[in-house]
């Protein structure tokens, strides 16, 4: 029960911030995909840069555990590209579709119904996928520091510097 309440409260905070950052809207999502408006990229990358410092700090202090999804090239690449195609058509992602509905953009409701159908379809296809696509190029649960064989505290500052340079470029270009 406590877990469910944590989920709800965390979701409310995140939904509030997504709306304030204006990343829920179709125009912003397509704006990024058309390389005209980088609002969602700024939001995501800011969250990631702050998050990576905190998560690895917690991990190193033994206060939290990482939860890495395996890199299965078949699934991640094929699935990722298919997701991208759907995302370009819908203009909302699974999380933001609910937020978009919350701010009254109710074309997202059709996307939500579609996503439920897509999930049901995948449940039918899963045994086949498991035997085929999901066996192609399985590298397990690996992280960038593990691949490069360096400490994460070497990678994280590089990400932050790269991110800040990218932000500066966005602002200069007015994206």
């Amino acid at each position, binding site marked *: 029960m406590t877990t469910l309440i944590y989920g709800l409260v965390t979701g409310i905070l995140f939904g509030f911030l*997504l709306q304030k*950052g204006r990343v829920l809207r179709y125009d912003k999502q397509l704006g990024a995909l058309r390389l005209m408006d980088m609002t969602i990229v700024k939001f995501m990358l800011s969250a990631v840069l702050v998050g990576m410092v905190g998560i690895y700090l917690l991990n190193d202090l033994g206060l939290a555990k990482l939860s890495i999804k395996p890199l299965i090239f078949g699934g991640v690449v094929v699935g990722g590209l298919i997701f*991208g195609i*759907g995302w370009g058509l819908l203009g909302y992602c699974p999380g933001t579709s609910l937020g978009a509905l919350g701010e009254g953009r109710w074309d997202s409701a059709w996307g939500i119904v*579609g996503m439920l159908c897509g999930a049901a379809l995948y449940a039918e296809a899963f045994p086949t996928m498991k035997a085929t696509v999901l066996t192609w190029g399985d590298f397990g*649960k*690996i992280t960038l520091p593990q691949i490069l064989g360096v400490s994460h505290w070497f990678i994280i500052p590089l990400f932050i510097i790269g991110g800040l340079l990218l932000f500066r470029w966005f602002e200069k270009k007015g994206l």
Partner: protein
Amino acid sequence: MKERDEGGWSPYLAGALSGLVSIGSVWIAGKYFGASTTFVRSAGMVEKAVDPERVAQMPYFLKELPIIDWQWMFVVGIFIGALIASTTSGSFRWQAVPDMWEVRFGPVRWKRWLTAFLGGTIGMFGARLADGCPSGHGLSGSMQLAASGFVALVCFFVGGMIVARLLYGGGERS
């Protein structure tokens, strides 16, 4: 290009605060952000109402049980949070067709709705095959420096940019 949008925050600020919320969630509840599994569980709940025996033996619904869990409540929370933020700042608006879409394809509702429905169906199939969406892979994956998160993020954007280009053309066309 667009009228001033009152009440919005800098995406850098809102994003950085979301990063803090995400850290807090991992610390307190041990939970990473994600959204797409919730659609599997929900689809399973709907199917269970129709044919419980069938759902009970489908491997994917055994893997992702049709129950309400942390992430399910998180996704509901996103709806509530956005509702609170938009109604308290006057930016809530009932809108059936997005502005950018209307400029390009006109105000006909069913075209947008059909596209949204198909996009949702295709997108969720892909997200499940990839084992995550922009929340699970894009945010949670890349903040843990997971290789899968970065590969997924690149593929999401490549697929999306191709479709955006097909729909909207290369630039000035409108």
